[in-house]
């Protein structure tokens, strides 16, 4: 059904700028601010669910009734609605979690305001049909996330925030340069019209350079391996719900979504770019997994594992691009299905893992694996949630991660890339090892003396974790049940396999 598209950006923006009014120190003001923010994220989730299921038609909204290409447009198609759903799920769970968790910090209203700005930016990136508008929303989300990483204002957090900000700004400058080149070569900023012009004239060297700038810029935002240096510092330094947002959805909305939209729908796929993404994905998978196994900081381990998991998504999308360019649309759509399913799976289980790490950190006051142990009895619910998420990420059969990895393996085998399939399975084993390590050092073994007195924090934190854990358990149904697949995943895959038809669909 049709949903009013501007609301996806307007609701979080209005709430974000309204919240600082409630920054009084009173308890009522704080509770009201939290309630408002929770209502906003929940309403966004409901709207994202309502926006699902557009199989054929695309909803286009022209801002201010200026018709394209003169004005800016918002476009809702299958891929956007999939990302909106993921943003809705992760942001409402993180917001619910922060209700209790952020009581350790001051400046509640500022935190909530930055959080809502980040959500507004991500929703804008996902909906935008205009390159420069995409860049503006990308910067809104990025600047909010830089500030949130340094929210605690401790030494490590400031350092991580600076590092993140420098690399993020370099990425943004690359992206803006690329957008300038696209404008110079096509004379339009609208994605659909740019795509149509590129189709008729073909890629010239300027556009090729723009494409490489986009790969580097969005690669920096997505933390694909040669550009990953900021992620293991930035994601653990943020408060736990923000780590969940950053790892769960920000790197995907700003990095992978934008990159695949531009490659598939604007420039058109080629074998070269497909293989480039496959190689980058494989390097990210292997390097991220190896680096993660050696970590002794709980959240740092999760952050490295994010790099590895993002590699899976990039691999699926790159394999899809390569197969599509070689003229195997059936296998390409299988690879893309795997990649996109892994995207939402990873959004759910990695945010759940970061939330459990936050719960553990709040109870024990430490993130070092060696200083914990035997918490299974003390934190039973956190332990259960963490086990479900670990089983999902490692690919244990009934849980969600298994299905996306299985589809990726099948796609790789069908493309006769047996070594790729072997690497997928191997990295999956490495993932299993790293999460067994988490289980062993956090929840099993001897309980240290100084942790005898700790209690589990209950209330909204448990609700958020239970919500995500249930999703983790049943997400496999998205693939198995045909009608769910037709509503959620198939439209998104179709947007990518249709490729350059995007222009015709939007212009109409």
């Amino acid at each position, binding site marked *: 059904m049709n949903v009013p598209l501007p609301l996806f950006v307007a609701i979080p923006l209005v709430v974000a700028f309204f919240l600082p009014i409630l920054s009084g120190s009173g308890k009522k003001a704080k509770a009201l601010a939290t309630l408002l923010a929770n209502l906003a994220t929940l309403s966004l989730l409901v709207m994202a669910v309502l926006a699902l299921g557009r199989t054929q038609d695309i909803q286009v909204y022209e801002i201010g009734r200026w018709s394209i290409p003169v004005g800016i447009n918002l476009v809702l198609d299958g891929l956007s609605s999939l990302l909106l759903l993921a943003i809705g799920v992760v942001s409402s769970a993180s917001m619910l979690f922060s209700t209790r968790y952020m009581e350790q910090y001051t400046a509640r209203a500022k935190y909530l305001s930055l959080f809502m700005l980040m959500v507004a930016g991500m929703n804008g990136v996902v909906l935008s049909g205009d390159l420069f508008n995409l860049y503006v929303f990308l910067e809104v989300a990025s600047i909010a996330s830089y500030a949130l990483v340094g929210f605690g204002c401790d030494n490590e957090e400031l350092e991580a925030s600076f590092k993140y900000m420098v690399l993020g700004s*370099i990425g*943004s400058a690359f992206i803006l340069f690329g957008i*300038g080149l696209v404008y110079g070569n096509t004379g339009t900023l609208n994605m659909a019209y740019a795509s149509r012009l590129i189709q008729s004239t073909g890629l010239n060297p300027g556009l090729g350079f723009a494409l490489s700038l986009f790969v580097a810029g969005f690669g920096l935002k997505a933390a694909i391996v040669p550009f990953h240096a900021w992620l293991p510092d930035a994601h653990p330094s943020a408060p736990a719900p923000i780590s969940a947002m950053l790892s769960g959805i920000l790197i995907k909305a700003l990095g992978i979504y934008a990159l695949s939209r531009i490659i598939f729908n604007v420039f058109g796929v080629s074998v070269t770019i497909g293989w480039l993404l496959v190689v980058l994905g494989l390097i990210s998978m292997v390097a991220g997994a190896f680096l993660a196994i050696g970590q002794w900081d709980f959240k740092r381990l999760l952050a490295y594992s994010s790099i590895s998991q993002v590699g899976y998504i990039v691999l699926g999308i790159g394999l899809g691009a390569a197969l599509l360019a070689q003229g195997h649309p059936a296998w390409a759509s299988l690879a893309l299905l795997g990649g996109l399913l892994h995207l939402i799976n990873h959004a759910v289980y990695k945010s759940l893992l970061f939330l459990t790490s936050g719960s553990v950190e709040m109870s024990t006051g430490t993130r070092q694996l060696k200083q914990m142990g035997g918490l299974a009895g003390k934190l039973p619910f956190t332990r259960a949630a963490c086990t479900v998420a670990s089983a999902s990420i490692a690919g244990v059969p009934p849980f969600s991660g298994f299905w996306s990895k299985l589809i990726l393996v099948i796609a790789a085998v069908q493309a006769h890339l047996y070594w790729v399939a072997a690497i997928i399975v191997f990295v999956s084993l490495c993932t299993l090892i790293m999460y067994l390590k988490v289980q062993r050092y956090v929840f099993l073994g001897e309980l240290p003396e100084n942790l005898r007195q700790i209690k589990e924090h209950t209330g909204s934190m448990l609700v958020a974790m239970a919500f995500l854990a249930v999703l983790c358990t049943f997400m496999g149904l998205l693939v198995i049940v045909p009608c769910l697949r037709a509503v959620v995943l198939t439209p998104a895959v179709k947007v990518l396999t249709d490729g350059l038809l995007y222009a015709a669909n939007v212009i109409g």
Partner: protein
Amino acid sequence: MAYAWCFLLFMIGLYCAVVKKNMVKIVIGIIIMEYAVNIFLIMLGYQIGGVAPIVGRAELGAIDKVSQAFVSNCVDPLPQALVLTSIVISLGSLALMIAICIRTYERYGTFDITEIRRLRG
């Protein structure tokens, strides 16, 4: 030729941001990169001897005669609008970056990033 200078400026900024050890110099490098991109955007729309893309009320009567020359001589206004937006965005991120620099200086007493190393690689 002008584009080459612009690209050179971009690379100087990138070099400065990647190689320099002082936090303030890194920030300056990033700002140079952003200015290079802004100049590039302006150059996309500019042409020598161009006119402003505005038709006055007085010229309305002769619009069909001037339109051909007018359209081909106009400076493209869109990149200028883009540059305004991009300057505002870079101002926002610059303010945040400098705020973080100041807070870091208060904590560590130095701007040298080789000495600010609590986090392992």
